[in-house]
C-alpha cells in the first residue's frame, strides 16, 4: 500500500512537471518573442534617423544579397528540375503532362521560392550575422561603440535589417527564374514535352499576383531571420560558447519560424483574395 502511494505521488509529480515545463516553454516563448519584436522596432526606427548608415547598408546588401546568389542559383536550378520530374511522374499516370509547367511554376513562385530562399539565406547570412554580432559583444566591441557615443543598434542592426528585407525578394526572384529555367530544361529538353504547351499553360495559369505573393513572403522572411539573428547576436553572453549558442539558436529559430509563418501567410493571403473577390 505504502509503495503504491509513493509511486502515485511520483506519477503525479511527473505529470505536474510535464505540464509545468509546457507552461514554462509557452511563457518563455512569448517573453522572447516580445523582446525580439521590441528589439526590431527599436532598431528599425533608427533606419530613418541621421546619420544615415548608407555605407553599412550597401556592405550588408553585398553580403546578404550578392554573396548568396551562387548558392541560390545552385539550389534553385536543382529544385526546379527535381520538382518537375516528380510532378511529371505523377501527371504522366493520368495523361496530364501539359500541366507540369504551371504546377511547378505555382509551387515555386508561391511556396518553394520564398521558403527555400529564406531557409538558405537565414542559414548562411543569418548565422554569420549572429556570430559576428556575438563576437563583437563578447570582445567588448559593442561596448566600445557605445562609449564612443555611437548607437550600436543604429550602426550595426538597422542596416542589416534593411539589407535583409530588400535583398530577400531580389534573391527570391533569382530563385524563381533559375528554378523555372531548370524546369524548362528538364521538361522540354530531357522529357520531350512540347515547348509551346509548356509556356502557354504557364502563361494561362500563373498570375503576376502569384509572383508578388512569393516576393512579399520573401521580404517578411528576411525581416524574420534578420530580427532573430541580430537579436541573438546582440544579446550574446558567455564568451565563445555564448557565440556558438547565439548562432545556433538564431539559425534554428529563424528556420522554424519561416516555415510556420509561411503557412499562416499562405492562408492570410488566400483569405485576403477571397474577401477582395480576387480569383
Amino acid at each position, binding site marked *: 500500500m505504502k509503495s503504491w502511494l509513493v509511486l502515485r505521488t511520483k506519477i503525479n509529480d511527473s505529470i505536474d512537471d510535464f505540464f509545468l515545463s509546457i507552461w514554462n516553454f509557452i511563457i518563455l516563448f512569448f517573453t522572447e518573442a516580445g523582446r525580439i519584436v521590441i528589439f526590431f522596432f527599436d532598431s528599425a526606427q533608427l533606419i530613418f534617423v541621421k*546619420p544615415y548608415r548608407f555605407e553599412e547598408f550597401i556592405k550588408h546588401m553585398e553580403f546578404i544579397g550578392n554573396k548568396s546568389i551562387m548558392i541560390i542559383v545552385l539550389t534553385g536550378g536543382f529544385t526546379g528540375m527535381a520538382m518537375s520530374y516528380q510532378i511529371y511522374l505523377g501527371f504522366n499516370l493520368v495523361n496530364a503532362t501539359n500541366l507540369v509547367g504551371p504546377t511547378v511554376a505555382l509551387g515555386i513562385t508561391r511556396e518553394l521560392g520564398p521558403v527555400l530562399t529564406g531557409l538558405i539565406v537565414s542559414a548562411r547570412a543569418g548565422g554569420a550575422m549572429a556570430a559576428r554580432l556575438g*563576437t563583437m559583444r563578447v*570582445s*567588448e*566591441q559593442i*561596448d*566600445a561603440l*557605445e*562609449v*564612443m*557615443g*555611437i548607437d550600436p543598434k543604429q550602426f550595426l542592426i538597422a542596416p542589416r535589417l534593411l539589407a535583409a528585407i530588400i535583398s530577400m525578394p531580389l534573391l527570391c526572384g533569382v530563385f524563381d527564374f533559375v528554378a523555372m529555367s531548370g524546369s524548362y530544361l528538364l521538361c522540354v529538353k530531357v522529357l520531350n514535352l512540347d515547348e509551346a504547351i509548356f509556356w502557354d499553360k504557364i502563361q494561362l495559369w500563373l498570375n503576376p499576383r502569384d509572383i508578388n505573393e512569393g516576393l512579399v513572403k520573401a521580404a517578411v522572411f528576411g525581416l524574420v531571420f534578420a530580427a532573430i539573428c541580430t537579436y541573438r547576436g546582440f544579446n550574446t553572453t558567455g564568451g565563445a560558447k555564448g557565440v556558438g549558442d547565439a548562432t545556433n539558436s538564431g539559425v534554428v529559430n529563424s528556420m522554424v519560424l519561416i516555415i510556420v509563418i509561411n503557412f499562416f501567410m499562405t492562408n492570410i493571403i488566400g483569405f485576403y483574395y477571397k474577401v477582395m473577390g480576387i480569383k
Partner: protein
Amino acid sequence: MELINAVEIKDLKKSFDGKDYVLNGLSLTIPKGQITTIIGFSGTGKSVLLKHILGLIHPSSGWIHVLGKDVTTMSYDETIDFRCRLGVLFQHAALFDDMTVLENVCFPMVEHRRNWGISEIHNIAAKKLKESGMEEKHFQKLPNELSGGQRKRVGLARALALDPDIILYDEPTTGLDPILTEMVDNLILSTHESRQGSTSIVVTHDLHAAFRIGSFIVMLDKGKVLLQGDKNTFFNSEIPLVQKFLAKGFKRD
C-alpha cells in the same frame, strides 16, 4: 566655476536582480587632473562602477555626476556629447576587427567630427598612434596581426582620438606579462603627463601598478568604498582587509 572633482558619486546602489546589491551605497569623489586607481578583490563592483561612470548602466538609486553633469538624467543627445568627452581603453582593447589600425583610430573622428576632411583626420590619427608608440609600418594592419601590447597602444590612441577630458582604463594590464605590464603602466603615465589637466581612472587588480601610477587610490569592498587616499593612507591603514590585500598583492609579486 571651475570643477575640482571629475567624478562625484553619492549613495550609489545597483542591483541586477532586485535582491543582491553589487554596489551598496557607494559614495566617492575622484579629483580632477590626477590618476586615480580603483582596486579591490574580484566581484567587489569595480567594473560595474566604471560602467556607471560611462553611463552604460543606470543605478538602482543614488546619483553620479561626471564633469559636473548628472549621468542618470541625460537626454540621448547629451549622452552622445558627454561620451565624446570620455576615452576608454578596454581590457582587450576592443578594436574593430574588420578595420585597419588607422581606420580604428579615425573612426571616432569620422563619426563625431563630420566637418573635418578625411586627410586631416588621417593626420591626427597618425599623430595619436605615434604618440602611443605605434610605428607607421603597422598602420595598415588588421588588429589580429598585432601583438597584445600593440593592440593596447592602438586602443589607447583610439581612446585619445577626440581629446577626452577623462580617460578610463579597464584592467589594462590583466593577462599581460611583466614587461608588457610595465610598458602599459609607462604608457598611462606618459599619456597623463603629456595631457595637462586630464583625468585618468584606472581599474586594476595589479597592486604594483596601482601604487606606481596612481596618485589617488580607492579600494572597494562589498560594493562600498573601504578606503581612499594616497599611498601613505594605505600603508598606514590599520583596516585588516586593506593590510591583507596589500600583503597578498605584494607577496605574490
